[in-house]
Structures are given as C-alpha cells and as structure tokens.
C-alpha cells in the first residue's frame, strides 16, 4: 500500500528505469484503440445497410413525388450503387474527415458539421452533470462507507438506488411539472434573451439547470456505490490502524490514507463512463429539447437518417475507445502495481 507521496517516488523510479517499456506500452494501446475504431466503422456501416426501410421512400412519404424525382434522389444519395462501392466511398471520405451528408434532417448538409454544432451543447450538459455527479457521488460514498450501516448510509444508499432506477425521461418530466415554469422547458437559448454575453450566459445556465439535475440525479448513484464499496474494502487495512495509532483524527485518517487508495477503481469508472454517458443523455436531451448529440441521434433514428446515425455512432464509439485508452494509461500512472506487473 502506498500513500500519494510514495507513489510519486515510484513514478520517478519507473521513469528512470524504463522509458522504452512505457513507450512500447503506449504504442501498443494506441494501435489497439485504432483497430477498435476501424472495426466499429466497418460494423456500423454494414449494420445500417441491413436495417429495413428505404431512405428515399422515408424522405418522400406524405408528399407528392414523381418517379423521376425518386430516381434523382437515389442517384444523389448514391444508394443506387453496390454496397461495397458505397463503403469504399464512405471510408475514403472518413479518412478526410468527411462523414457523408445528411439525407433527411438537413438534406445535403455535411454530417461532420451537424455533429460539430451539436457536440458543444452535449459536452456542456454531460460535462457539468458528470463533474457534479462525481463530486456528489464520491462525497456521499465516502461518508456512507465510513459510517457504514448508519442511518445516513442506509437512507443515502436507498435514495441513490431509487433515483438510479427511475427512467430519465420520467424524472425530467416530473421536474418540469414540479418546478412549475421556474425553469424553461426547452432548448438552450431563449429567443427573448438580450444579446449581450452576460445575459446569454445566464440564459444558457438557466436552461441547463433541469436537464443537468435530471442527469445528475440518475448518474451519481454509480459513483457513490463504487466509492462506498471500494472504501469498505480498505476499512480494515493495517495501515489505517497504524494511522490511528499515530493519534490522527478520524477524518484525517479517512482523507489522507483510506480515500486515496479507494479512489483507484472509481477513477477507472469515471473514465469508462464519460465515453458512454453521451449516449445516456439521449432521453434527457429529448425531454428538454436540448440541441445536443443525443437529440441528433433521436431525430436521426426517427428518419432514419442513416449517414447521420452512422456518423454519430462512430463518434460516440470513438469517444468510448478514447476514454478507455486514457483510463488504461492513467491507471498505469496512478497505480504502481499495474506498472510492475
């Protein structure tokens, strides 16, 4: 078992000992991640081609359309070509950052642009909710474990588990009804906000409250429970007895000795979650009409707008792969045992 200071020393030792080992490790992980992303791209491409439904028919439903128009649309979309030619074009485009063009939502718009403009609202929403969920979850988890089986532990664990099991869209709607117009029910901007930066910022924050609270309420439980159980695992460790024997106050024992060691599994979880949490925001974004990636996915699914779906899923899957890669690299830094093994 190591305290943070010891860990710092170990990092130094490792760097002196074998820089090439680390480089090889990083390179290996990078290649693995790259292969995963390519597989994801291939898989999604063919998976979406297997879905039922004719994109051209879906586009023109309920509208007077001549067969010539339909043929023209098919040609414009390239869906009249063999599937492997389509894949070749798609993959070549992808290498140049071209994710194709939207068919339904914004016919002809580059998918990369659409994802780009939706990315920041999602990062704002998911990012703030994750940061708050991590802080709240860790704080509650530490306290719940330290006072295991106390009233605090039991009620907090109960509340967290209940919120964790509640459907997000339902919780969101309930919050909308309960707050009775205190917060806006849609979007990220009000058309009535003054154009200056301060008013705009406050307007966005105002819109952020409900979706953020909804996500936070649903997500913090996992951080709390992991923190709680990993801290419980450390509770009977000898080094805590030593620390107490030194005469340290109880909360210092917890803060300086138990928590840093128990944080390792939680850190991994945080990184694994960040990648997938965007996908988890789909329903919340739909309820609050938040103009983010989740909503784009929801719209694209309804089309279905295959190029958009494909683009979104590729980006989301890449995010998961990237975060897993970061977690693996970070874990090596955090935990000396991983490096030496």
């Amino acid at each position, binding site marked *: 078992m190591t305290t*943070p200071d010891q860990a*710092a020393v170990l*990092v130094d030792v490792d760097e002196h000992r074998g820089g090439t080992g680390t480089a090889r490790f990083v390179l290996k992980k990078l290649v693995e991640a790259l292969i995963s992303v390519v597989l994801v791209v291939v898989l999604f491409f063919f998976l979406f081609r297997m*879905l*039922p*439904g*004719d994109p051209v028919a*879906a586009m023109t439903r*309920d509208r*007077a*359309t*001549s*067969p010539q*128009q*339909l*043929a023209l649309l098919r040609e414009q979309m390239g869906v009249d070509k063999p599937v492997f030619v389509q894949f070749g074009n798609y993959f070549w485009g992808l290498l140049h950052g071209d994710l194709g063009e939207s068919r339904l*939502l*914004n016919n*002809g718009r580059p998918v990369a642009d659409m994802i780009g403009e*939706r990315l920041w609202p999602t990062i704002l929403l998911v990012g703030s909710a994750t940061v*708050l969920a991590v802080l709240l979850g860790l*704080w509650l988890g530490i306290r719940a474990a330290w006072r295991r089986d106390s009233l605090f532990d039991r009620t907090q664990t109960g509340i967290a588990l209940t919120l964790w099991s509640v459907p997000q*869209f339902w919780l*969101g709607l309930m919050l*909308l*009804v309960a707050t*009775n*117009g205190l*917060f806006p*029910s*849609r*979007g990220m*901007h009000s*058309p*009535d*906000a*003054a*154009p200056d930066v301060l*008013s705009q910022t*406050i307007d966005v*924050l*105002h819109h952020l*409250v409900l979706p953020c609270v909804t996500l936070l309420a649903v997500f913090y439980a996992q951080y709390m429970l992991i923190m709680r159980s990993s801290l419980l695992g450390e509770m009977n460790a000898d080094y805590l007895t030593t620390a107490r024997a*030194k005469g340290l106050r109880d909360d*210092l024992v917890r803060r300086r000795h138990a*928590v*840093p060691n128990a*944080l*390792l599994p939680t*850190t991994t979880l945080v990184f694994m979650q960040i990648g997938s949490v965007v996908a988890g925001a789909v329903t919340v*974004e739909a*309820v*609050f*009409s938040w*103009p983010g990636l989740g909503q784009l996915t*929801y*719209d694209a699914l*309804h089309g279905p707008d295959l190029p958009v779906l494909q683009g979104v899923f590729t980006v989301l899957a890449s995010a998961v792969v990237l975060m897993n890669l970061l977690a693996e690299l*970070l874990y090596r*830094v955090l935990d000396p045992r991983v490096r030496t093994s």
Partner: protein
Amino acid sequence: MMGWFLVQFQRRVGRLGAVAAVAALAAIPLAVPAQAQQGKVLRVALTTGIDHLNPFTAVLSASTQIGRFTFEFLTVPDAAKAEASPALAESWTPSPDKLTWTFKIRGGVKWSDGQPVTAKDAAFTFNRMLTDENARTANGNYVGNFETVTAPDDTTLVIKTKTVQVNMNLLDVPIVPQHIWEPVKDLKDPKTDELAIAGVSDGPFQVTEYKQNEYVKFKANKDYWRGAPKIDELQLLQFKDTEAAVNALKQGEVDVINRLNPNQFAALQGQQGITTNAAPGRRYDELSLNFGVTDNANNIIGDGNPVLKDLNVRKAITQAVDTQTLVDKVLKGLGQVGGGVVPPIYTAYHWDPSGTEKVKFDLAAANATLDQAGYAKGPDGVRTAPGGAKLELRLTGHANRSYDQGVAQFVTGWLRDIGITVKQDLVSDDELSDRTQTGKYDLAIGGYGTSPDPDYALSLHTCAARPSPDGKGGSTDTFFCDAQYDDLYKKQLTETDDAKRAEYVKQAQARLYSQFPTIVLDYQNALEAYRSDKFAGFTTQPQPKGAILEQTGYWGVYGATPVGASDTVSDGSGNTVLWIVIGAVVVVVLVGGGVLLSRRGKSAEDRE
C-alpha cells in the same frame, strides 16, 4: 496523483464550491426577467423538425410552413374552403385550349429589402426550377409539365404547359426575389439558409433569427399587402417531446400547440385560460388488404395470403370492421368515419358511400358472404378455404402508435367472429414501410396525409404508382391497379371544369371503395390548443371549423390577435435584478471562503 488531487480539491474547494453552486442555482430563476421582450409575441410550439429555410430545398412540413409565413405565392388556398384565391396574382385566365395561363401580378408589393415584387420574380422562380434540378427538390412536381414561363411586363406572367394541367390555379410554390437568388449558383450551399438570402421575403412575417434546432423568430411585415399582422413577433419554439410542450402550454411558456394526441387533448380541455380545437384533419387512416399486389410489370410481389385475392373475402372483412366504433373508442370521438381517400376537409372532392354502395357493419352478413363463397367454418370456429387452407391472416402496423394497437385489438376480435384468425405483428416504422412497400403483409394499418388538390390522394392508387420489378420508383399506397380507376384518374387530371372534375374525383373514390383493396377507417382530427387568455382571432382553415396551424396557408397566425394586458417587459428592471443576483453570489462566496479559512486555521494543529 489524480486521487490525491481529487482529495485536495474536495478538501479545499468542496465546501466553498458547493455553497457557490447552490447559490448560483437558486439565483438563476430570479434573473429570468432579464429579457429583451418587446411587443406582442405569439409563441408556437413546434414538435417537428426544420431542415432548411431555403424554400427550394425545404422539404419537411415545418419548413414548408415557414415558407408560407414568409413568402407570398401566386395564389393561396383560401381560409374558408381551401380553394384557390388571389395572392400575388390578382387574377388568372387559361386560354381556350387550357395550355396557356396568364396571371395578372399585383402591383405595389415590396420585398423586405424595399425592391418591388414583379412578374419577373415569379418567372425567375419557375425558370430556375425548370433549369436547376436542385431547385426542384421541394416543389418540382408542379413544373414537370411546364413548357415555358415568361414575364412580358412587370404585371403579367405567362405559363405554357405541354399538356393540360389542372392544378395551375394552385401552384404551391413560394415566389422568391430574382435579385437575391439569381447570383446564387449552388442551391445546396448552406449559405442559402442564411437570412441574407432566405430572409428577403414578402409574406406576412419576416425571419429575424434562426437558431438551428432551437427556434425561429419572425417580425411582422408591417408593409404586408393584406395589412400588417396584429402581433409584432412570431416565435416557433422547437420541442422534441410533446409532453414537455403540453406542460409549456399549461405554464404559459408557449401560446399555441398542435399535433396533440387524444389523451393530451382531453387533459387540456377545461383548463383555465386554454381553449382546445379539434379540426378536421387532412389525413386518412386505412386498413390495407393484400389482394395479391403486383409491380408495374404485373408480377405478383410479396407474400400475401392468396385468400385475399377473392373479392368476397375482402368484402366480408369490410363488413366486419365497424369504423364508427373505431372513431368512438380508439379516437375517443376525435375524428370522422372513413369513406373515400379524400378527407371531408376538402368538401368539394370528398366522397362518402351511400345507399347500396355502402358496405354496412354487419357480422351476420359478413358470415353469410363467406358461407356463400364456400369458406366453411370448421369445428374450432375457423373457416377453411376451398383448397383446405385455414383462414389465418397476419395484421401489421406501427408498434409505437396507440392508434394502431387499438385498431389491431378491435379488428382481431371482429374477424374472429367471422371465422378468420388474426395474428398481430406490429413493428417499427421502418420495418412496416419495408413490408408494405414489398407486399409482405396480409392486413396493414397505415394512412396518408393529403393536399388540397385531390390529385395526390388519388395518385396513390394508380397502376403507374406501383414500383418497378427491381423494387424502385414506387409511390403507391395500396398497389391498386384498375383500368376503370385509372381512366377516371386521367379524366380528372385534365378536366378544368371544377364541378365535372369533382364528379370524376368522386367516381374514382367510389370505384376504389367497391374493389376493397383498402378500408378507409377514419380521418383523425388535427388536435390543437391555445392560450385563449392571451390570444384570439385565429383564422381557421377551413371555416367555420378548421385548424389553426395544420393549414395550407398563413391564415391562423396571420389572424392572431392579442387579448388583455400587454406582454411587454422592460429590460431595465431585469438588469437590476441581475446585478442584485450577482452581488448576492459574491457575498455568499466571500462569506463561505471566510468560514472555510477559519476552519483551516482550526485544524492546523492536527497536521502531521
């Protein structure tokens, strides 16, 4: 390392951060009045998407509606009956051979940049559509038959067609300013959605701000030729969730909402300050019967049960479906019983079966029909076809629509009573359209939205609408192919006498009905609601009982009149509140910081 940082962060900033965050969250609602609202604003909840502002490429219905609010058309369907009425064109006259149409263009109408609107703009719009395929994306079907379009002078537009075209008095094409659009080479360029191009307009409203995926803001066109709208500003606010939109109406965040479902509609009825509006819809719901459907080379496609090729079986099924019960129970009375494929909102063209044509709901008669046709009932109550196969039909529909679920339940029960077993298989939208387009169904619940001109509703059942043998190019609804029907369809398409044309349209619907390729179940009402404590005077289409938003026109929002006190809020007071809030946050942070510092001092002695 990271863990250590987290702990330090939690220790040093945790409490302070928590206090500040709580204060900030609590303060935000107070800051809401910091909004630059001016004048009377009508807020409309929009629950469908917008693809483009560029009227040449705008395809989705909400975008088309924006085009109606902002651009004027040669003619528009009037509010009373959705029939052609003057707009940019004061009058229009066909030549004796009906191949040349001359439109007299109204003088004195101006674009929002001050330039006059002339016949040259109209000629440019149509000629662009004739020469640029991208310009045909949204409304290309109107110009396919055009020979030439010319503007001999500023007030005269002459359109020559190759063959007689009946919808010439109702060309649903927004007219755009030539001086803005002529320099635009690529109509697919995203820049064409920007206000510098798409924002120059001559309709009752002008777009002032478009935030993609969020809202569109319009200001009233004070110089509009019919007279300025009575509201100052129009906002279309996008909602992805209709429940959230309903809640927003209740809380006064929006003023008008449409596309409600019967449950939401019922919940809003009788609410203080809210008026509901159930208007006849422009959509028909149907139960399609797979009568052995074919492609346009007459090859049978799909896997329909062959018993449905027998007209008697289809007749018996029609006799066994009680459309009145479906309207009463499934639609909760918010709809009309089905007849022809042109909904009753279009009174001139709608057809209802009467007298001997009408197939009445009668289970005994349905049983008799099947008995006579030689389908004997077995001991288990299920009939068998003369070949020995049991009468067992698959029923498909949209799994996510409660309407389809309700209809499926009722139909299954009724058909059981006449000795036909039904296997329900409701599926996703895409799976359903895949199955119905390839003939892989026995019974399918579906429906189509229609336009004021009956051509579209009728065209869905012609031989030519069927797909080619490679599965492409189909625009059919029922796969119906019948010489008599096609003949009537062609006659109505070239008959320019309104009364005679209506007669052909009705005869075509009667022919379709008599062959039972589909049962038109009902026409669902368009369900809308609005804040009657804030607005009145919405002009519905048609009159007297029609829709506010679900229109082919701008009448609903154009007629909106504010009632009661002004919705104006000055922004001065808002800023004061804002500064108070900021001050409060600063105070909280300072006090919190002080408390934290004193705590740190206390625990210093405990350090290792």
